[in-house]
């Protein structure tokens, strides 16, 4: 041992080449060592969720800069690099991803692109939402401006995916999540889009609620055109379903005397509430016009055309306002058809008979109230009565065989009187008309089984009496 100490005093000359060797080794090895440690550190961080990760190595010291999504993740990342063999020190420049309060995410669509903005909780969710936007909105440019942030509500991803499906239904608009509150606004691409979105929003994950839904839909249009030349009633536009369609076509057939109903309707979702309840009376109003158009746009009905006599426009407007469901608006632009040339009594009688051969004035069963479906027919009768102002007219009501015979004549008279009242209200002098009941023995059709026959037997006749 003493020898070693003695000899060691003579070992110093070797340190000179050793120092040279050391300098050379340092020069040669630094870069490869740093590359090796950087590679090993990167591998060690696999599986640890970090954003904006940056690893830099100087000698054996590793600097880790990254945004972590939890405190555990942050500490875990530092520990993983500290455990890499060869690493001497870790300069920890990690931080937590910022907390977003409130946690806001939105997708906004204009004509050509969809912009995603706000916060996403994880890179994987961010990627998934971008991918979903591209899939749902095939062909539309998608711009992702979302940042990562902590504080997303539970079920965020599911809610955001659901909203992306809804934005595909919009022409333009915005869907947004703010904590658990959902807001949607914009214009639906198609009729029914608004309803489809509202239905889809019922499937939001638990904890989410709709704070505002301001989706608008294109106007819901229904049109009816009464063409006196072609003698048609053309129905176009939308109806909510086939039941409504059948009801509207059937009501048209009842209300319009000889016009052929042309059904060009299509069924679409998104009808305003009370659609059928508004359209049917509006068709009744149209039936009282010689020529006219009905346009229903959302909850606004616009009726225009020519009425048969002066009092009609006011009556039509007043009746319709009374019958319209709440929230509906009426725009009536009704003028009066020029009066037809006067004719003598015999032609007047002929005109009455021809018209009443095409249709019958109907009453509510067992009552004297005139069925509103007969208003169109009555207005035409008024027009004829106006053409022979000097003639007196007998309104003859026939009864069917139903009920006690003692009641029938009384009811028949009441019915005849109801027609006289209608004519009087139309502005004709009441003195020209006499209400007369006639018993069923003068039936024009069999009373036994045929309901059509009964209806005919309930007929009203106009008999023109020449003044002496």
């Amino acid at each position: 041992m003493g020898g070693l100490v003695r000899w060691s005093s003579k070992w110093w000359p070797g340190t000179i080449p050793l120092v040279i060797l050391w300098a050379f080794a340092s020069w040669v090895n630094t870069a490869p060592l740093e590359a090796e440690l950087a590679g090993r550190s990167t591998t060690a961080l696999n599986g640890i969720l970090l954003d904006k990760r940056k690893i830099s190595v100087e000698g054996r010291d590793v600097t880790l800069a990254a945004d972590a999504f939890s405190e555990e993740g942050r500490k875990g990342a530092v520990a993983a690099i500290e455990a890499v063999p060869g690493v001497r020190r870790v300069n920890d420049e990690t931080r937590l991803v910022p907390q977003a309060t409130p946690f806001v995410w939105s997708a906004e669509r204009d004509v050509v692109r969809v912009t995603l903005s706000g916060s996403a909780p994880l890179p994987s969710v961010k990627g998934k939402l971008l991918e979903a936007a591209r899939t749902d909105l095939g062909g539309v440019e998608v711009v992702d401006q979302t940042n990562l942030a902590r504080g997303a509500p539970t079920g965020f991803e599911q809610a955001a995916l659901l909203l992306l499906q809804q934005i595909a239904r919009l022409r333009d608009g915005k869907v947004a999540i703010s904590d658990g509150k959902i807001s949607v606004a914009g214009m639906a691409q198609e009729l029914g889009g608004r309803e489809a979105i509202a239905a889809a929003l019922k499937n939001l994950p638990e904890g989410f609620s709709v704070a505002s839904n301001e989706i608008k839909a294109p106007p819901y249009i229904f049109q009816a055109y009464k063409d006196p030349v072609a003698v048609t009633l053309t129905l176009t536009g939308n109806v909510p379903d086939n039941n409504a369609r059948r009801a509207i076509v059937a009501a048209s057939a009842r209300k319009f005397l000889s016009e052929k109903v042309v059904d060009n309707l299509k069924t679409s979702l998104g009808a305003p509430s009370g659609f059928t309840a508004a359209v049917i009376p509006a068709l009744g109003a149209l039936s009282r016009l010689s020529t006219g158009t009905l346009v229903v746009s959302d909850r606004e009905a616009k009726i225009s055309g020519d009425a048969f006599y002066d009092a009609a426009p006011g009556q039509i407007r007043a009746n319709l306002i009374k019958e319209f469901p709440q929230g509906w608006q009426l725009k009536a632009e009704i003028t009066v058809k020029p009066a037809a040339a006067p004719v003598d009594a015999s032609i007047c009688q002929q005109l009455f008979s021809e018209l009443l051969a095409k249709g019958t004035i109907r009453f509510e069963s067992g009552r004297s109230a005139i069925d509103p479906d007969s208003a169109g027919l009555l207005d035409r009768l008024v027009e004829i009565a106006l053409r022979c102002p000097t003639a007196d007219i007998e309104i003859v009501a026939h009864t069917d065989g139903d009920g006690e015979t003692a009641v029938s004549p009384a009811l028949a008279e009441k019915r005849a009187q109801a027609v006289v009242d209608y004519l009087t209200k139309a502005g004709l002098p009441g003195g020209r008309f006499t209400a007369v009941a006639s018993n069923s023995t003068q039936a024009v059709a069999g009373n036994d089984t045929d309901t059509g026959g009964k209806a005919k037997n309930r007929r009203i006749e106009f008999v023109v009496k020449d003044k002496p």
Partner: protein
Amino acid sequence: MIFLAIFHWSWLLVALLFGLAMGWIAVVHRGKGVSKPLARGLAALAAALVAAALAHAVPGRPGYWLDLGIMMFASYLIGCAIGSLLREKVVSNPAKPD
């Protein structure tokens, strides 16, 4: 440390061989050795450098170079010791002719 030793094994081996050679020569060298006070000073310097390395006191690349230097110096010293001991054995027990 094992990683470093494996990563730099060739350089450490060269340092060890340097040491072996120097140790081998030192036994029979007649020149002047390092004086005792200087040797103490050098030992203190070496200890200080080792302490600095263990304490990670030198950051970045210089820190790595210090670690590498200490490892090479240690290999050199081990080589010297082995070389001297071997030479001493050879000198005190010369091979006897048959």
